[in-house]
């Protein structure tokens, strides 16, 4: 079986190697795709069906129901330093979510104004690069569009 991973934000999909953070650009926690979000207030959506296993204001992980796969969405780079300001989560840790469900309202333009990159790494945690297929990393995407498929 394979899982289709959706873009959490609308913007421009790009290779993870373009993210200005070695944890992501060197795929230390797994392969994936980066999305450079459009400006303005927006709501990031869940990339897959599953359980919200980790939830910070600026980042979250959804684990699939069989526990085999987990997808990380990080809203901007080093945004932990914003200490949650400007990020409004709509769910709680442990909650069941559906792919495409609204998770966090935020504003990429404000993140950029604060001096951080707003690029959003979307990472299939702890799998090999060969687990990914159907990768979109050089096109405009809308929130909820497929970004890649991960084997499970």
């Amino acid at each position: 079986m394979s899982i289709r991973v959706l873009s959490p934000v609308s913007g421009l999909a790009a290779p993870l190697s373009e993210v200005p953070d070695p944890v992501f650009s060197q795929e230390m926690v797994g392969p994936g795709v980066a999305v450079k979000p459009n400006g303005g207030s927006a709501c990031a959506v869940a990339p897959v069906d599953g359980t919200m296993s980790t939830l910070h204001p600026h980042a979250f992980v959804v684990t699939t129901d069989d526990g085999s796969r987990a997808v990380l969405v990080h809203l901007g780079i080093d945004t932990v330093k914003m200490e949650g300001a400007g990020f409004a989560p709509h769910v709680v840790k442990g909650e069941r979510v559906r792919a495409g469900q609204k998770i966090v309202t935020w504003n990429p333009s404000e993140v950029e104004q604060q001096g951080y990159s707003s690029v959003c790494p979307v990472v299939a945690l702890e799998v090999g690069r060969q687990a990914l297929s159907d990768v979109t990393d050089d096109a405009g995407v809308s929130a909820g569009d497929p970004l890649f498929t991960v084997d499970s």
Partner: protein
Amino acid sequence: MAEDKAAAILAALGGKGNIVEIEPCITRLRCEIEDGSKVDEAALKTAGAHGVMQQGTVVQVVVGPEADTIASDIEDLL
């Protein structure tokens, strides 16, 4: 097992006397330490770190999604 990993990471960071602060962030432990020269990068990787980034007294240990759990296990050891 998780506690063993926390203990191994703590030891590789120079032991509890060398820790100023440890903060988890999704995929990594952001650690502020007293003496950067006491950090053993090879031992951190043996302990399960996917990567280590050190700038002086700030060390980021990339441990994956269990960062929150490991950080609280390390807090228990401090």
